[in-house]
């Protein structure tokens, strides 16, 4: 049973990866990556990593892929040349083939005898949230905190990079309407009225009593 599931999920993962690389439309590439990630979550389940499989589906196939889909639909496909031509492309494929051959040689010639077994005998609680949580909060506390800082920095950085520069919001010529303009009575001698009167304009904003 586990062999059948492994070959289904493994071929799904490889097919998804090939789809990401070869499809012309970036939107279809994202969908192929979703297929790849779901197959990979099935492989994680076969390796008794339940928590990581659930996190893979929720975080990757859920959140990150939604981000990709939004950006792809925002940017569109406008005139993007899809693939390299000529020598660069051939060189890229040759490099990938050489990398695959090298990794296979490294795996076949490995001195690790355990990779031809089904793995060590795992107890019942292997890979469940309790084990991962206790490891994260005791042995790996520093990487955990560093990862949280990294997420915070990435969120701030993304907002700073992608924010709207200039535009109507930051235009100083546009009058800024604040909540106080709505609730303040007229002719109170406030600073806002003085500024408006100095420019020769009647204060039109405000409640007339």
């Amino acid at each position: 049973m586990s062999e059948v599931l492994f070959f289904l999920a493994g071929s799904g993962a490889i097919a998804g990866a090939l789809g990401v690389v070869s499809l012309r439309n970036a939107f279809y590439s994202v969908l192929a990556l979703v297929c790849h990630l779901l197959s990979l979550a099935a492989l994680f389940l076969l390796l008794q990593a339940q928590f990581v499989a659930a996190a893979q589906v929720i975080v990757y196939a859920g959140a990150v892929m939604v981000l990709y889909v939004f950006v792809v639909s925002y940017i569109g496909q406008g005139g993007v040349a899809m693939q390299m031509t000529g020598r660069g492309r051939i060189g890229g494929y040759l490099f990938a083939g050489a990398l695959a051959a090298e990794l296979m040689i490294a795996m076949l010639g490995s001195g690790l005898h355990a990779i031809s077994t089904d793995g060590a005998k795992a107890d019942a609680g292997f890979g469940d949230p309790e084990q991962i949580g206790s490891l994260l909060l005791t042995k790996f506390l520093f990487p955990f905190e560093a990862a949280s800082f990294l997420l915070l920095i990435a969120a701030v950085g993304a907002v700073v990079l992608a924010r709207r520069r200039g535009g109507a919001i930051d235009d100083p010529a546009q009058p800024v309407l604040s909540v106080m303009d709505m609730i303040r009575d007229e002719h109170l001698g406030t600073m806002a009225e003085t500024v408006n009167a100095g420019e020769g304009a009647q204060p039109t904003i405000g409640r007339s009593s």
Partner: protein
Amino acid sequence: MAIGWYLAVSAIVFSIGAGGVLTRRNPLVTLLCLELMLNAANLALIAFSRMHGNGDGQVFAIIVMVVAACEVTVGLGVIVAMHRRGLIIDVDELRELHG
């Protein structure tokens, strides 16, 4: 299934991702191929974690997922900023730093 089969899948996916990074010109697809490579590394980490019967590899995989999410966020922010400035979304055409 023997652990070696999982490692073989991981190696194949990693090579496909590396080939995609080298050949595709759309930076969005380049980011997707980087995700492929990171996920292949995750699969190898979890396979080795199963091989040793030790949960440490799964924690590594979760940290790798966090790093991948950060990379995607910043990368997509850069791409959106490029789009806002009207630059061509093509890694070969961006040569302002070329000198």
